[in-house]
């Protein structure tokens, strides 16, 4: 397999409590991999170790063959990892276009200028990204007044600004309406396949997970308890017992 992200034996403990224990998996280019599990299973901890926000106690994280443990988030981003957050993080006092431009300026290393006017460059590039996520018509609005679902789209556009090879999406559809959820993830899946981007996402909406993921891995109490295609995971009795229950 042509793995973009390869994780081996990841460990993390907080004050004696094992949050993530011996987690290993890989994501291939163009693949949508869903990470699911009960609240507190260690999904977010796992995520934060992949882009450098948290340092793992042990384990290896390889991005296209290169070990990235110990790098800061901004260095990981420079290697081609885009990220969206569970609670959206955008620049609320800047316009939608300026948010994306900020990522483009950063990618081009052109933020240090003191006297140029911000926003003059990368306008067309920003608009192209906004068009892809369906936010071009709101480009002038400040992010502070957007609806939640729209903020998620802006985040996606920003994550795409450095032409990433890996997208990390922590609960990308939390707080969205059911149809918006499927739309956003269909959009993501389309982009992933077209640009050969690997996508790792956590998600609570099982409809989204089972319809959009190519593969699913299940985390419970810090350990991987199952992995496979949606059909395999759905049929797994262990997963039904700890997570899915009787309705799915």
């Amino acid at each position: 397999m042509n793995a973009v992200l390869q994780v081996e034996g990841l460990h993390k403990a907080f004050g004696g409590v094992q949050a993530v224990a011996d987690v290993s998996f890989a994501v291939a280019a163009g693949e949508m991999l869903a990470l699911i599990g009960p609240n507190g299973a260690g999904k977010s901890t796992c995520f934060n170790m992949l882009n450098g926000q948290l340092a793992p106690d042990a384990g290896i994280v390889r991005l296209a063959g290169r070990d990235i443990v110990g790098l800061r988030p901004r260095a990981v981003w420079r290697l081609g990892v885009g990220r969206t957050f569970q609670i959206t993080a955008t620049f609320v006092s800047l316009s939608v276009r300026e948010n994306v431009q900020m990522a483009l300026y950063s990618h081009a290393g052109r933020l240090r200028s003191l006297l140029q006017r911000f926003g003059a460059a990368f306008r067309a590039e920003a608009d192209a990204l906004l068009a892809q996520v369906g936010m071009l018509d709101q480009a002038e609005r400040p992010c502070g007044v957007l609806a939640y679902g729209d903020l998620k789209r802006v985040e996606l556009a920003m994550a795409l600004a450095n032409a990433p090879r890996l997208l990390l999406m922590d609960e990308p559809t939390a707080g969205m309406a059911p149809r918006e959820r499927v739309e956003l993830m269909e959009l993501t899946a389309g982009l992933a396949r077209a640009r050969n981007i690997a996508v790792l996402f956590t998600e609570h909406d099982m409809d989204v997970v089972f319809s959009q993921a190519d593969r699913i891995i299940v985390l419970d109490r810090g350990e991987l308890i199952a992995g496979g295609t949606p059909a395999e995971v759905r049929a797994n009795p262990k997963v039904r017992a700890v997570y899915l229950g009787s309705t799915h």
Partner: protein
Amino acid sequence: MTFASILIQLLNGLAAAASLFLVSAGLSLIFGVTRIVNFAHGSLYMLGLYGAYTLIQALGRTPLGFWSAVVLAALLVGIAGVLIEVLVLRRIYRAPELFQLLATFAVVLVIKDIALFTWGAEDLVGPRAPGLSMAVEILGKRIPAYDLLLIAIGPVVLGVLWLLLTRTRWGALVRAATQDREMVGALGVDQARLFTSVFFVGSVLAGLGGALQIPREPANLDLDLAVIADAFVITVVGGLGSIGGAFLAAIIIGVAKAFCIGIGTVSWFGFEISFSKLTLVVEFLIMALVLVARPYGLLGKPQALQRLTTDPAPPLTAPSWKIALVWVVLLLGVPLLADRYITIMLTDIVCFALFAVSLHFIMGPAGMVSFGHAAYFGLGAYAAGLLFKRAGLPMEAALLLAPLCAGAFAVVYGWFCVRLSGVYLAMLTLAFAQISWSVVFQWDSLTGGSNGVFGIWPSAWLADKTTYYYLALACCGAGIAILWRVLFSPFGAVLRAGRDSPLRAEAIGIDLRGFQWAAFVLVGALAGLAGSVYAFSKGSISPSTISIGQSTDGLIMVLLGGVETLTGPVVGAAVYTWVRDAVARHTEFWRAVMGGIILLIVLLFPQGLVGGLKALFLRWKEQRA
């Protein structure tokens, strides 16, 4: 040092720690629940000290009289705290937090003048504690019995507070409200009453801290800001909201100060080191060290409330060139019509305008609130004065090199500051300002100590007041234009973005700290320019240009004008400077009048002058439409 003298210094330090702890615990409680950084907390301590002085005279110098006076003074200060809460703060809990800060500055001014009116400007030395005035002999050294009692009071109060907070319903409510006061209200708890009760307890602690010091230190009018600085340091070193942390920090700092006094001047390898001069600085050094190693204080928690502004900031709009041009023409024309007095005042105003704009740059768009911005203004002023007088540089060179010196200090201070955020950052800036002040204040041979430096006059071609005004207008106007321009550059956009979401900035590859550090240096240098221009306009400089008072003046100007508009700080600087001058010519109690005016504005225009006028204008336009 012998073992005995070490022990004595330790006991001295522990005795001093008791009052520090009481004040800080009160501050911490109040901040936790109401999120208000109560600058008036030191004033409450001062009132406790003065109150105890008067009450002891009234009740008699007997043990009963003394102790009733102490307790009564503390309770009266508690009532004063309740009055502040009910009359002022309760009305503005929904206002932005920085604006509440402004209200507490106003209360400081009012209380200072009430004290001046009631007790006069002379220091008042209180009596010794009746029945405890003897000294106890320990290892051949004598230590006042009263100090031993104070040493015991600290842990007792800590224990009582701990029981209150963990074993009572009130304590559970206080801790819950510290995290989420709106939710506590939605569960049926009357927040107003809870806040008032917390203010009462916190104020009693401040008052008690002051009253207990009556046998140890004279009551004086400078205690308010001195004590609030101490209390900030202790709260931050211990960790905001941690009572145990405040206790620990009070002991560390009390003992460190005592040792500095006790060691005195020591000669090491031929160098004379005066530890007693370190006394004023040591707590700030400890604070800087602790915050760099543990950004949330010794016992604080990372998730502790640390942001000063919570509402998302609105987009920034650039001032229009046309309106700016009109103003420039007006300002150029004034000296042609006005008298010398107005020209001098306008010179002051343009200096303070640049000072306020540079402070606004860092606290508004860049989101890093500074309580110690006077450091750069004052260091700029001193650099100008010293380069001119001591180094013998021409005035023009001194004027232009001074900002670089202030910027150099900002390089060092900023490196530490950008590692923190929110209240912790604000406190650290205050710490650096106080360190600078202490050094300037004590280094007689270089800085002239408390007298300052005289005879700093501009070159002959600038000696005319009108000519100098034009120079000031050119320098400060250019400074303001640069700052405003930078805000709309990619660099400025990064600062605004970093304020909005540091997490996102990092996630798109931005080294936010680096940008913030550079911003610190930029505003430091330009505040230094303001100070340098100011120094040559006055002809002398004194340590008050670096004092907390000067820093709070800057904050008042920015907040008065409104932090959300670019022009607000300029308006705030002009109004504040002009009104202060006008009032001070008529009454000795100008502070109380200023405080009253500020309180009125706070209650009437919770978005600041410019913001408030904008809102009024919008409403008027809507009504007409």
